[in-house]
């Protein structure tokens, strides 16, 4: 590696102030620090540092998303094969169908998002920050497989600029960037974001008889007859195992609760995600789903789902594990995290059950609580302040 380092060091001056490519300084620096850990040593305060940095943290999150991502690609292929009656169900055939179907989305998200990050970093004279490495993979995973790339590009640009960069970049945003992208798509292009025709990639092939591309929650939301069985794309009822392992249509990265659990194990084992948020989120969702299930009514067919089905279907598990735990937009106090997680879980299920206009409530619940996280922290911190005031002799 010494040779490579020497080579890069030799072109470095051209990227510095006054150099030929000084306009690309941030980009160069981004790649440079990606390849070689900076040799900067401490100037003040402690003389030694923990090895964990922002890059490592983000990479661990991306790593924890890989099981969901790979399964999602395979599942896109599976749903396509089922819908079109393709008899070839071999692993690689299905996987590569899905891989090619979602690759343009992933590339679009990264190119647009990172492009904006590079430009902003250069204008501000900052280092390039790694936050979008995670957002860039999260965004396609929570979108329908048939989302056009231009829509995705517009939404990513909107979210990165207006949800993140205007507030100062990674670490200063108060809304989750991936979910703002999703919300923008949802409200700007509703016909491409919900309904029966967006969650399965047919790839121009005619579907088999009896095909329906509606997601389980979409079927329930649209039901007018009360309790119904949720069906797969070919019209067979879905078992609980299908729901848990994710063999049904949906936003392609978030259907498999099993793969999400693998990701959760990675995040909790490395201590990157807060177990408090995940635990209280699951408790909140379970509690609300149980309540809804006990008072199930034909008016709101989703309430017939059992709590476990509620937790396994749709984007609930994905939102709790990967969205609610975003440390920048979540509560920062431990007490606050319990409240924050619980409310996300409960509100996601409330929206899902009692607002038939929105088949899934996880996105809106997380965004809503993003807005309230600072308020929750404020209350928690204030109790600390009051405790301090109480023991003080000098008041004011």
């Amino acid at each position, binding site marked *: 590696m010494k040779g490579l380092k020497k080579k890069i060091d030799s072109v470095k001056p051209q990227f510095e102030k006054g150099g030929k490519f000084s306009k690309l300084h941030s980009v160069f620096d981004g790649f440079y620090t990606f390849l070689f850990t900076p040799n900067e*040593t401490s100037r003040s305060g402690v003389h030694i540092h923990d090895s964990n940095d922002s890059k490592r943290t983000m990479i661990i999150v991306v790593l924890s998303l890989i099981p969901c991502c790979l399964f999602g690609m395979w599942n896109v292929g599976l749903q396509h094969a089922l819908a079109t009656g393709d008899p070839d169900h071999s692993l690689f055939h299905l996987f590569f169908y899905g891989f090619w179907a979602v690759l343009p989305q992933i590339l679009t998200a990264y190119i647009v998002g990172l492009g904006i990050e590079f430009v902003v970093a250069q204008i501000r004279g900052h280092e390039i920050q790694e936050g979008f490495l995670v957002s860039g993979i999260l965004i396609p995973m929570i979108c329908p497989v048939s989302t056009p790339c231009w829509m995705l590009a517009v939404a990513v640009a909107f979210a990165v600029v207006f949800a993140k960069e205007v507030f100062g970049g*990674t670490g200063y945003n108060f809304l989750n960037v991936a979910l703002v992208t999703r919300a923008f798509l949802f409200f700007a292009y509703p016909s491409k974001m919900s309904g029966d025709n967006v969650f399965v990639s047919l790839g121009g092939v005619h579907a088999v008889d009896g095909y329906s591309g509606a997601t389980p929650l979409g079927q329930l939301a649209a039901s007018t007859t009360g309790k119904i069985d949720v069906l797969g794309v070919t019209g067979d009822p879905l078992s609980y195992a299908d729901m848990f392992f994710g063999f049904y249509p949906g936003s392609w990265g978030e259907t498999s609760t099993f793969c999400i659990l693998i990701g959760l194990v990675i995040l909790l084992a490395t*201590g*990157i995600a807060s177990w408090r948020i995940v635990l209280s989120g699951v408790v909140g969702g379970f509690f609300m789903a149980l309540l809804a299930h006990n008072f199930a009514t034909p008016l709101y067919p989703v309430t017939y789902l059992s709590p476990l089905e509620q937790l396994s279907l749709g984007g609930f598990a994905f939102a709790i594990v990967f969205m609610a735990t975003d440390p920048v937009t979540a509560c920062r106090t431990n007490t606050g995290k319990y409240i924050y997680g619980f409310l996300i879980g409960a509100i996601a299920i409330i929206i899902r059950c009692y607002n038939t206009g929105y088949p899934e409530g996880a996105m809106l619940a997380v965004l809503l609580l993003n807005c309230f996280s600072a308020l929750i922290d404020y209350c928690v911190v204030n109790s600390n302040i009051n405790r*301090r005031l109480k023991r003080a002799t000098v008041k004011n």
Partner: protein
Amino acid sequence: MAEKIRIKKGFDIPLAGMPSSIVTDDRLTSLFAISPDDFPGPVWKAVVKPEETVNAGDPLLVDKATGKVRLVSPVAGRVKEVHRGERRHIEYVSVSKDGDPQPVNFGNNMKGNEAKEAILASGLWAMMRQRPFDIVPDPEVAPRDIFVTAFDSAPLAGELLSDSLAKWLEAGLETLASLTAGKVYLGIKAGSNISSKAAEVYEFEGPHPAGNVGTQIAAIKPVNKGETVWTLDAVTAAKIGKLVKTGEADLTTTVALTGPDVKDPHLISTFVGASIDSLIKDALVKEEGVRIISGNVLTGTRVRKDGFLRFPYRQITVIDEGDDADEFMGWASVNPGKFSVKRSFPAFLRGFSKPFHFDARIKGGHRAMILSGEYDKVFPFDIYPEFLLKAIMAKDIDKMEKLGIYEVAPEDFALPEFVDTSKIELQKTVRDGLDYLRKELS
């Protein structure tokens, strides 16, 4: 029986280079210096000129405002230099040891005001700190309480109190008790058999920062707005005891020479402010590419080979500078020798009982505060550190007060700074915040 307090939040960094208990006498050092930067608070004025002859205990610098607080020469000899930096700021006053020491005698069996004057004149006063602001105590302000810590839990720290000093501790605590209407609290390491009648003794167990006096204050009786407490270590307390009984200002010190780049880590007995090069002569594994720290790796001051031992004069740590490491894709490393308290690196698999080699790299880029709850795990105070730090960065005095700035000193933020993923200079932030607050409130 002393009350036992268990500190749960904290961490003992497994740094290689623990000192043995062998003490060698320093016979080499002939140059000593006192650096006023080590004593924040007063504006210091030099009262000696180069080539002037001084005795051990004669003042080198006095505080400009009252003239009462002094920094004294540790040895008898001639003033070599009053070294000034930018804007004539005094960086150090050095004295070369010369001739027989004839220490100044400050009186004997002193009590009350007489004792206080002696402490001020002997330079021991400046070895104390006050909270709020973590500065040399203002002699005009009576403290609510006085807190003394009898152990150092920082990485590779040696034993604090030697046997020869321990016998003066009780006398020192008695003297301190006479300087406050409140109490003197003595924080000892769990299991050590120090007892005291003059002070209320608390046993502390748990990881660093259990030995930090700030941690002990937070656990015993936190500082509130409008209150002042004094803090010091048991060495200074014992020296105060020796001073009031015998009139001698003890300016000797035992320095632990530690760290992965020291051949044979051990203790050295010398005087405060000894020059570094004679202390580390032939003691290092290598001569180039090292960082010499006077103090421990968390709160110490980086010094050059031609520099001097800095306050609190009890440890030197030598580590690799590491600025030539050129680590390829360090963020992807699975090297078990790369230390992290988090389990995102495999270091935890080999366990933290085996020592690690650290270098001085910050190992990442500077970022905004991203992860939450990192600091809290190593910060044993009833304070929300992230919120306090943000208030300091925003220079919001009202919020700083409410969130507890009067209770903290920069050293309390050393461990949070060590574990920080975003590599923010927390101790510097807190120091700046305290200075800003003091300026605004005066």
